[in-house]
């Protein structure tokens, strides 16, 4: 019989990035006994890597900006697949969440008159991102962390949650393990908030940290919750491509926001050749207008270098395939000829440092070589926009592991604001739910035992399959068959390979003991990586059209019929993923007008 260290809370928050921290702060402020459980040390979550900024219509640079314009940009950037209510709440509440961070100690870069400065970013009509140089995520996570430390929240660092436990239909707790000693932990809880981030470690070239193994997506799925939009995977256009050891590391969109431009091997600004019909009316078609836009956004249209990420990533991919790429298989991103060295070092200190140290490139004198890198998961747990509640009672989700806000493609800067807005909402939602519960749900320990035995079983297979080999093969599969451009045949091949990888993962063996054993941790993480990989592939097979972060070579255009549905993945009675098409919530007429109108001044 496995042994457990047991704890009891009203609310257990899983994940301590921006969404998890904000949720825990809110749940605790609402009077809930709150635990914050995270795989890494506090303050190391992937939020720390966010560079560009937090999108919020503060109107500090352009008074013309407001929540309606932000809402419009978000919906159009998401190719209208967004949950309209989430997009509305997000645009309306982001400014207050930013000011709240300032009240908690964040020091944002300032305007001349002392207000929070805002920078331009892809798909945003006005300068909208509150930022701190190119280290906004660090500022955000440190502010939240330092605020939370004094709020009496119990933090379980380096503790991984492996399974959610249920009492009938309700959430009753969670099973996890301490990474340090390998001991099992059982949380009894009225409510669980998932804030585990993304899934990037299932792909070969990605910008994500080791933690991004799709835990929240999988925990929710195994507990019976719905996943939506899993086919929409964002490839960020600008990841480093050379040297091999840094392939995929992010180069902030802020480079283009600050004037940087994409060029091919012939020196052409090729983005002018890739302006889609959908964005023609609001995109500059000459270099002169594009350059003038940086100084005057009211009377000029946006440079195509700052089209939404899906458009730019596909364009780069096409240039490389057409033989106009850079020596190491990317394209060029040039800021050196566009801004003086002093400006570059002040605005983009992290990028300057990163290229100098890791690639021997001085970005103030030379162009960068960049290419698409898997960056963000638009899809996730289907939630109620107001409370973050999943379809399983007692389960909540926020941030990257929740789906809906970003639709088919996320705009840069909308992630940090998402974490704050919906972290707060899910924290409150969970606390309110816990308060309303008459009795604490009962934990059936046999549910935990089944999972615990599976986890410990890896030690009985010393000499079994090496979990690192399985992960490498999975990454290769997802990269080559479920990547930026997809076809039906390749998706079928991917599903066959995933089935084989599942068997290999189940037979993965572990050497050594339970104390801080990364091989064992990976063997357990493989389960969730494979679960999300299968969900992505099946959803991608179902969406027979191209839209946002999902491009099908065999179905290159958009389909009217599919524009009205989410692809939903849930676990069927036989334990396999069931894929259905379900209608998108219908957008009210007033809001539809905001999205469809072309503003007079662009």
């Amino acid at each position, binding site marked *: 019989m496995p042994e457990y260290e047991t704890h009891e809370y009203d609310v257990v928050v899983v994940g301590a990035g921006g969404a998890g921290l904000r949720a825990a702060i809110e749940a605790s402020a609402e009077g809930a006994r709150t635990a914050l459980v995270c795989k890494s040390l506090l303050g190391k979550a992937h939020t720390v*890597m966010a560079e560009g900024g937090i999108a919020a219509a503060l109107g500090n640079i352009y008074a013309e900006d407001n929540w309606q314009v932000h809402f419009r940009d978000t919906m159009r950037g998401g190719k209208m697949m967004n949950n309209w209510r989430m997009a509305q709440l997000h645009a309306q509440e982001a400014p207050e969440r930013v*000011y709240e961070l300032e009240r908690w100690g964040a020091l944002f870069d300032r305007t001349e008159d002392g207000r929070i400065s805002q920078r331009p970013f892809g798909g945003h009509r006005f300068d909208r991102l509150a930022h*701190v140089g190119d280290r906004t995520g*660090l500022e955000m996570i440190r502010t939240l962390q330092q605020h939370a430390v004094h709020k009496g929240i119990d933090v379980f660092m380096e503790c991984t949650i492996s399974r959610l436990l249920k009492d009938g239909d309700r959430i009753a707790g969670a099973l996890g393990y301490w990474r340090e000693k390998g001991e099992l932990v059982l949380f009894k809880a009225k409510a669980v908030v998932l804030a585990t981030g993304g899934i990037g470690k299932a792909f070969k070239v990605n910008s994500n940290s080791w933690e991004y193994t799709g835990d929240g997506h999988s925990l929710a799925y195994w507990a019976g919750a719905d996943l939506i939009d899993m086919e929409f995977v964002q490839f960020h256009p600008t990841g480093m491509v050379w040297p091999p050891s840094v392939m995929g590391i*992010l180069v902030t969109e802020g480079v283009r926001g600050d004037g940087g431009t994409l060029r091919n091997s012939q020196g052409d600004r090729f983005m002018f050749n890739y302006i889609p019909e959908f964005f023609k009316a609001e995109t500059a078609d000459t270099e002169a207008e594009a350059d003038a836009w940086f100084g005057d956004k009211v009377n000029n249209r946006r440079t195509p270098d700052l089209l939404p990420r899906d458009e730019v990533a596909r364009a780069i991919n096409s240039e490389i395939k057409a033989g106009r790429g850079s020596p190491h298989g990317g394209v060029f991103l040039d800021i050196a000829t566009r801004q003086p060295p002093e400006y570059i070092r002040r605005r983009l200190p992290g990028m300057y440092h990163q290229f100098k140290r890791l690639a021997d490139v001085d970005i103030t004198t030379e162009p960068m070589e960049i290419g698409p890198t898997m960056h963000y998961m638009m899809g996730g747990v289907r939630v109620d926009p107001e409370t973050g509640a999943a379809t399983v009672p007692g389960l909540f989700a926020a941030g990257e592991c929740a789906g809906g806000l970003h639709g088919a493609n996320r705009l840069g800067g909308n992630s940090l604001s998402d974490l704050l807005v919906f972290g707060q909402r899910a924290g409150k939602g969970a606390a309110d739910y816990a308060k309303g519960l008459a009795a604490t749900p009962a934990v059936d320990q046999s549910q935990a035992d089944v999972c615990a035995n599976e986890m410990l079983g890896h030690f009985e297979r010393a000499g079994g399959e090496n979990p*690192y080999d399985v992960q490498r093969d999975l990454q290769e599969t997802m990269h080559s068959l479920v990547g930026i451009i997809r076809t039906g045949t390749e998706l079928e091949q991917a599903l066959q390979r995933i089935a084989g990888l599942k068997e290999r993962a189940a037979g993965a063996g572990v050497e*050594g003991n339970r104390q*801080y054993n*990364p*091989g064992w941790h990976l063997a357990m993480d493989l389960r969730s990586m494979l679960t999300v990989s299968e969900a992505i592939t099946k959803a991608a097979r179902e969406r027979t059209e191209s839209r946002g972060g999902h491009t099908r070579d065999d179905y290159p255009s958009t389909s009217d019929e599919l524009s009205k549905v989410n692809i939903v993945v849930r676990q069927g009675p036989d334990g396999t993923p069931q894929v259905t098409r379900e209608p998108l919530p219908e957008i009210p007429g007033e809001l539809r007008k905001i999205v469809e109108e072309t503003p007079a001044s662009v």
Partner: protein
Amino acid sequence: MSDVLMRVFRGDAEGGDFVDYVVDSAEGDVVLDVIHRIQAAQANDLAVRWNCKAGRCGSCSAEVNGRPALMCMTRMNTFEPGSAITVAPIKTFPLIKDLVTDVSFNYEVAKRIPAFNPRPPDADGRYRIQQMDIDRGQEFRKCIECFLCQDVCHVIRDHPENKPDFVGPRFFVRLAELEMHPLDTADRTELMRYDAGIAYCNITKCCTEVCPEDIHITDNAIIPLKERVADQFYDPVRWVLSRFRGR
């Protein structure tokens, strides 16, 4: 690809020793790449912390050839070709396993630093702050909490018994950040003098040298804080005045 000899510490609180691994290294590799390659092919249970692999999270601190550094920002081509490269855990904190140490000391200290306490906002509920007033504070907020400054600080590296009385360079940076925050109103000088033990620091600048974020820890954080403490407690004019005021 060429072979390199890595001498990696393996062990736990009970003891341990360096183990040799011969491993491939490719152009552009950093130490963390090579450690990962060992982990994937030769020692699945080799314990190491990391997250971002881009110098932004401060997780992969270690002592490489005796020098405290982030493994993700230490290029392999900075070492003499053909020589063995040693990788050891940071020394100032208790060993958990291999390259992973127990840094909970830092999280306990963080709880003892009194929280940010802002002045009321302007009439419209917002704050106006000039960029020049936050430049100083922003330098301190670059800290990625890699704890390399804590690792090299003699006060606690050579004398662990000082840990209860000395918060270490990381938290002088945190205190400086709060003290120089244009909105903060709390006074932490007494804490700096007593609980934080700022007098233990004899400004050898080892912390500044290892900071991967190039924060001028000694010059910009510690010395100004020492001056504030001196002003408050040792200024003779203030001392005389305090006699008259009876406090």
